[in-house]
Each structure stands twice: as structure tokens, then as C-alpha cells.
């Protein structure tokens, strides 16, 4: 009996608070690619959060992965970036739940999916699911402790959806990190994102190739703890 009680007490005293981090952004920004990378690095190389493709609205349901322990004191040999000696050891750990969300959009036209070779029926079903996915992603904002807002650095960042995601989080006092993704592409411009949102932390990354990804984890550990 004593064992059970002391273990319970220990569990209560040392219960690590896990933060729920939502990966948000427009369709195709690379949200699922990043969620997969985080889980591959810190949980299981074989475990995919979701499928990433070049077709927008690939993710149409919110997916949560619990108990991801980001630990920058370990050597992240999978990453291209050399480990950053400046990353403070004390801030280098973060326990989180990763929430991959469907891309936010103000319009969804089934005809756009037909351009990717889907027949009409498939395209219409996908459009319907995509609208439900957007609603689900918005509802999840109520249940999130921090937002990783992903943008495609080859695209114009100053869109109304990006602006209102940030506005909503500011109104709720929830921290936001902007990740300027796809910096491996030649026409990417993370600077354009920094200019559009000068009051925010912007971390240039490549979710696909791993560029600068450790810096992102470091910022997450600082902002979301």
C-alpha cells in the first residue's frame, strides 16, 4: 500500500506539465511534414503523424500525438544542422503534445482538386471533408497552449488568415512562433515574413530537409514552457 501512495504522491509532485502545441497555417505550408519530423526525431522513426503531399487539404482531421519529449541535450544526429552550443541546457527540454491541423482557408472549391486529376465525385467528397477540417482546426484553438504558425516562404505571407490566427492568439495571450518553412527552395524569402510580422519571432526552417530545425526546437522550448 505504502508503495502505491508514495508513487502517487511522487507522480503528483513531479507531474511534468505537457503543453499542447498546435501546428497551424495555410494548406500546403508543410505542417504535417514538420509534425512527422518532430515525432521521428523524438519518438519513433517509423511513426507518421500523417501523410504529406503537394495536394492542398491533405490533412482533413486534427491529429494529436501525446508525450513528445523534445530534448536538445541529446545529439540530434538526424538533423542537418550542427548542434548549437548557445542553446541553454536549462531551456533545452520540453514535454509536449503535437497537434497537426488541417490547413486554414476561407474558400474551398472542389474544382481545384479536379486539377490534380481527381474525378468529380472524389473531389467533391474531399472538398466537404476539407471544410469540416477547417472547422475542426478552428475549434482546437480553444484547447491549445501554444501555436506554431507555419508559412511557406515562397508565398506571400501577409494573408488575412495568417493575420487573424495571430490576432486570435494575441487576444487569448497564447504564444505564437512563426516558422518560415521551405527555405531550401531558391525563391524562398523568410525576410518577407519577418517584414510582414515584425513584432513576432520568425524562425526560418526547412521541415523537409531539416535546415535550422534545432533552432526552432530551441525557440519552442523557450516560448512554450
Amino acid at each position: 500500500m505504502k508503495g502505491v501512495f508514495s508513487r502517487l504522491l511522487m507522480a503528483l509532485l513531479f507531474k511534468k506539465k505537457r503543453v499542447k502545441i498546435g501546428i497551424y497555417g495555410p494548406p500546403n505550408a508543410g505542417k504535417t511534414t514538420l509534425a512527422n519530423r518532430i515525432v521521428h526525431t523524438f519518438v519513433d522513426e517509423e511513426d507518421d503523424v500523417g501523410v504529406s503531399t503537394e495536394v492542398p487539404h491533405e490533412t482533413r482531421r486534427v491529429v494529436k500525438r501525446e508525450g513528445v519529449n523534445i530534448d536538445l541535450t541529446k545529439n540530434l544526429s538526424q538533423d542537418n544542422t550542427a548542434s548549437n552550443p548557445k542553446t541553454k541546457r536549462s531551456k533545452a527540454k520540453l514535454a509536449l503534445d503535437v497537434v497537426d491541423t488541417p490547413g486554414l482557408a476561407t474558400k474551398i472549391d472542389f474544382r481545384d482538386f479536379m486539377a490534380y486529376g481527381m474525378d468529380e465525385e472524389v473531389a467533391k467528397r474531399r472538398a466537404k471533408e476539407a471544410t469540416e477540417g477547417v472547422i475542426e482546426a478552428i475549434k482546437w484553438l480553444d484547447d491549445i497552449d501554444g501555436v506554431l504558425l507555419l508559412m511557406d516562404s515562397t508565398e506571400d505571407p501577409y494573408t488575412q488568415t495568417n493575420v487573424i490566427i495571430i490576432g486570435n492568439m494575441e487576444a487569448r495571450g497564447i504564444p505564437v512562433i512563426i516558422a518560415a518553412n521551405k527555405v531550401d527552395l531558391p525563391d524562398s524569402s523568410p525576410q518577407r515574413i519577418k517584414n510582414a510580422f515584425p513584432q513576432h519571432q520568425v524562425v526560418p526552417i526547412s521541415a523537409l530537409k531539416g535546415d535550422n530545425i534545432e533552432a526552432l526546437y530551441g525557440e519552442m522550448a523557450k516560448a512554450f514552457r
Partner: protein
Amino acid sequence: MQIEMRLISKDKMESMSSMEKLRFVLDGVKSGNIVVLEGGLTSEEQMKLIELTMIEVSEDFPGIEMSGYPSKSGFLNLRKKTRLTVVGPANTMKTIKKGKDLISAIISST
């Protein structure tokens, strides 16, 4: 085809509750109008508008195009002042350039 623009005064906006405003905007946009709101919608209202829009997306109504100036902090940061919001049907309105103080949109009926 003609496209109607509705410019809604701040007084009218303030006389409505959040939900009334959003219903009013969405009904206007669904019947093909461009709706310009003096004073604008808050970020929360705009997010809610996206949610309502998604519920009503159909083959004939693919959704909305929305643009606007972000709110400015008011007194002691307690109240954010919204400025202007433009909402139109996604199949006729396209924002081509959105800056801090200039928004360009193209309206076409084709």
C-alpha cells in the same frame, strides 16, 4: 453581370451583436455582394466568420475572400480598435495585394 457593393457604416455595425453582424455579412456575400465594413471585424469575429462560411460552402458558393487592416491597440491595450474589413464571394473577388495601408482587390464576374 453587375456586382453590388455594400458599404456598412460604423453606427450600423455597432447596433448589431457579433452573431448578427456575421450573419448579415455572410448573407450579403452569399447573394453575390462585396461587403465593406467601416470599423471592421475583430480577429475573433473573422475566425468565426470562416467557421460559418465553411458550414455553408457548396458547389455554387466556394467561400469568401476577406481582407482588412489589423486592429490597433486602443487605450491601455485593453480594447483593440478594428479598422476596416472587406468580404466578398471567393468566385468574384480576389485580393491581389495586401499591405499595411493599401489593399488591392480585383472584382470580376467571369
